């Protein structure tokens, strides 16, 4: 039930691809991978959620933290490829408009 994480650096953008359910038992792992990305010279930090069909409030909380880290570090923070299940959770949280959300990882990486 744990998540798999993959990091992809291309130019001054970095993508964190998440695979699996993001819940209370796995969101810390995502947080630990995400936090350091804002300390480096990445202009754009993308979280690719195409492999995530379930996210709970602890996952959303981590992404909200990402938003705060990006404000502090002046890096862009983008979400890509939300599955319908994940999108629904963002909508119930009324947070879909707070994030920069892209249909695909490629679109999120476009300058």
């Amino acid at each position, binding site marked *: *039930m744990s998540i798999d994480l993959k990091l992809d650096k291309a130019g001054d953008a970095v993508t964190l691809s998440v695979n699996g*359910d993001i*819940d*209370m*038992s796995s969101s810390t792992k995502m947080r630990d991978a995400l936090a350091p990305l804002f300390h480096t010279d990445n202009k754009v930090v993308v979280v690719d959620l195409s492999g995530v069909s*379930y996210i*709970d*409030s*602890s996952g*959303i*909380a*981590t992404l*909200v*933290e990402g*938003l*705060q880290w990006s404000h502090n570090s002046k890096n862009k923070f983008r979400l890509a490829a939300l599955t*319908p*299940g994940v999108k*629904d*959770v963002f909508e*119930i*949280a*009324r*947070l879909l408009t*707070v994030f920069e959300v892209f249909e695909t990882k490629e679109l999120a990486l476009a300058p």
Partner: protein
Amino acid sequence: MSQPIKLSIPSDPKYLGLIRKVLQELLDSSDVPDDTARRLILCVDEACANVIKHSYEGSCDEPIEATFTIAGDDFKVQIRDYGKQCDLSQIKPRDLEDIKPGGLGTHFINEIMDDVSYCTNRTKGTLLTMIKKIKTGLTSTQNKG
């Protein structure tokens, strides 16, 4: 179905996936539409996460008992813990205007469920009852037709 399905797990976040699987399976077999099932699963997950965090304060080896009943159009889930009882007025979502991490779990539960009640009227712990009117396979087919 008058005999409910009951699942008891230790208060360890690693078992949240198990409880979601059981519920998914149960809702599937009752022909509950996918998007409704997803939301019900979210509520149960959030309620159990809150029990772990707040009632058991992170202790991983206490019991959480979930009872699922589908009767007619009603899906009822009860979450029983034996941890710290709290002032029920404390259980409330954060103001959504204020974008910050945390405080979303109870918002999801209140938003999705039709009826939510916490009962601490017992020697130990809390019984949370959540009810949702659902359209089962049968009902939604009739609606489409």
